């Protein structure tokens, strides 16, 4: 089937196998490999992207049924000009192996943007769909709190 999709502000027109998940589309067709496949079953959060600003598990989303603008980790900042949330992850050493990190960052961003980054207990609850086996949780929490303050100051 034919499909038109906006990813990180770029419009892609493509021929799509209707079985394709958004995750496989991003990774295999568009070569946006920053979004990771940790379980392919919506259990780990590593594949989190934004659709119209809302966090979505791309492994559970069929690309064919998708309506909206997709943003991935590659779309929020670059190594030379990182987004404040990426900078906060660097500053607080909020990762180790880095495999869950893109998903953590995308969830963290929507956690802040949706106003769920108030008390630390609220952040912890909101972020508990993103597993980190290195368990850098303490630093992830610190990074989100610091990015929240930076982002609020920039508003």
């Amino acid at each position: 089937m034919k499909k038109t999709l906006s990813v990180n502000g770029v419009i892609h027109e493509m021929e799509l196998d209707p079985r394709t998940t958004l995750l496989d589309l991003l990774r295999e067709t568009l070569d946006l490999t920053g979004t990771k496949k940790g379980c392919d079953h919506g259990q780990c959060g590593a594949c989190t992207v934004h659709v119209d600003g809302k966090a979505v598990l791309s492994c559970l989303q069929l690309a064919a049924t998708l309506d909206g603008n997709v943003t991935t980790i590659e779309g929020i900042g670059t190594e030379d000009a990182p987004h404040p949330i990426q900078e906060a992850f660097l500053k607080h050493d909020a990762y180790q192996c880095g495999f869950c990190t893109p998903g953590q960052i995308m969830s963290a961003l929507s956690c802040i943007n949706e106003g769920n980054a108030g008390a630390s207990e609220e952040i912890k609850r909101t972020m508990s769909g993103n597993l980190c086996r290195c368990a850098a949780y303490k630093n992830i929490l610190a990074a989100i709190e610091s990015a929240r303050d930076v982002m609020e100051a920039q508003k």
Partner: protein
Amino acid sequence: MGNETLTRRIEGRAKVCGNARYVDDIRAEQFGSDFDHGIIVTSTKARGVIRRIDSSTAFKVPGVLAVFTHENAPRLNKIISLSMAELADIRPLQGPEVRHYGQPIAVVVAESPTAAREGANLVAVEYEDDEGDTAFSLAAAEKRLKPVKRAGMAPGKISSGNPEQDFEASPVKHDAVYRNAPHHHNTMEPGSAIARWDDDGGVTVQAAVQWQHVDTLVIGQAFGLGLADRLPGFIARKMLGSEISGKVRLKNTLAGGAFGRNLTMVHVLLACMAAKAHGRAVKISVSREQCFTLFSFRAEVRQRLRIGAESNGKLKSLIVEPDVAAGIGGSFVEPVGAWSCHIYNHESRHLQHRVARLDTQAPGWMRAPGGSSAMFALETAMDDIARDRGIDPLDFRLMNFAESDPESGKEWHSNRLKSCFDQGAEAIGWRDRYEGGTLRNDGRVIGYGMATCWETHFQFPASVRVRLTEAGEGIVFATLAEMGQGGWAALTTLASRSLGLPREAIRLETDASNLPAGAGAIASTGTYSNGVAIHEASMKLHRILRRLAVRDRKSPFYGKDEDAIKFEDGNLVGDGNLWEPITDLLSRHPKREVEATATTGRTFGRSRKAKATFGACFVEVSIDAITHEVRVEHMVGAFAGGRIIEPVIAKNQISGGMIWGLGQALMEESTIDERTGRWTNGNLAEALIPTQADVGKVSVILVEDDDPDHPVGMKGLSEIGVMGPGPAIANAIFDALGTRVRHLPIRIDDLMGEAA
């Protein structure tokens, strides 16, 4: 680049921006050629013989190109893996026998991952049942238990004095059985491998492994490529005895976690097999569920622990009898016993491991192997004895403090355990804590517990080559794996200090098999073992530079005293304001660069003294008085692990380790179906691991420590955090409820009926 002070991790920016490529992210452009996609088909029986595999339906899927089974897969030679997690008699696709659930029985290769996956689902397998006995747990395998001489790298048996007599004569006796559930590594990266056979008959492999030369050697042996690579001299002589072919070119890639799992992985071999049979490069990607059967896991352990003590609390005898589950193959045995004999003063000891081979895949190394179960039993027992005697658990440990290693009698290199106790106790408020069982006004009962942490050290053999260039760069060449715990960052810093160069001038070249054999990122020894080699090579380079300078008429050091030259910030520095940049000196050198290699750790760090990292873990738990849900409010870990190279990264690593301990204490267990041998919770929704919300406050204290006998003053850090929380949480639960649980994980149903 932006602000460099934001991260010490070499690969940090790439990781937070989604640019770090793990194996599954490697495309033709990075690999150097196109590849097809392979998916593994696994058995749905634990024991049996494959009568027929029908691939005809799979071939109807557009894009499916080939199916490899035991009938048409390449034959493999015998493999001995230095990791002990060897494939030995369980080499894949070599015959119709099925020996564990989820064993690889076919590989479907297709043009796309989707087609391969669909094809794999359509491979039909008929089995002949094997009616033989099966056992999937220690409880079902009593008859299979056999005593062993070795456990991992540790002895399987130790005996000294008259432990049984001493125990019988002791006025204070502890005699209990402790159990640790099996559980899996659950790295976030499931795992992929790409292989291509080249025109010279060699194979190029892209994988993420912890100990590059071990996996290189596995592939070399399997395919008869001779001796795979440049192993450290002593291993080459001992294990191999002849030349090395260099035909296995393993490009090591960032690992999305490893924790002991990424050693001798079967999918790496299957990628090589599929590529060989297919005649084209093949990438194999493993699914999350397959991670539970294709790779190793932490074995089930049950141990009887007996401790005899004097009435004043001094320990007298220690009898440790671990029964350890093994799988259908591999020589690895969870090294449970030896730990307990090193921690506290005692007079006599007896240790004997027994092993039962179960009908599962082979268990293997997993973060804090042995220590997790050993320290759970010992530290729970210590708490038990202390509370029975009315002694504070911390005082009881201090009372039995070992001034030297009780097992070997050797003096310690350095032992800051008492400082760990002091600083940890202060951080949690141990000395003025609330009484266990105090009900908070939110309906939760609180309790405190503690445990000693201890970890021994092997220094592994490591070779490195270090080059200093005219441009002022210091390049370290060695196979150095980065699995996330920060080894690259620490070794960069260490090289910068040893060489006397700015940190930005250091570059690591780590990924290819033809580099010198760095030590594996294993057993808390990677940074330490490689660090020593880097330091030694740096010292050699300094000697070369000094000699060059004093003989070079154009150098300000010409004719001066060689020994007075020091190295600072890229310069040679001497008395009386003499200095010259290394770059200037090298610009006059005919080769414009100097190089030195060093191989260290040939004796595995054997020393006249005993070496260990020490630590203490303190926890505060709160337990809902009605539901008995346990929350770990605060975990404190104070650790003395030698000189710390990168404190921020070290704390992150240790904090992660402590959270692993929390997982072991309260949630982690892989459950197996006693009838079929299938892991019943083989996915991340049911095999629980800690999430952000499970973790309370975690405080890591790095206690100042320096090993004066060691060239870089280091010890290991990776696993010391893992073993404390298990017993400390169990002890805190006892403190809160008076319920003693002697198995991990501790679940709510273990605590029900014990209302506060």
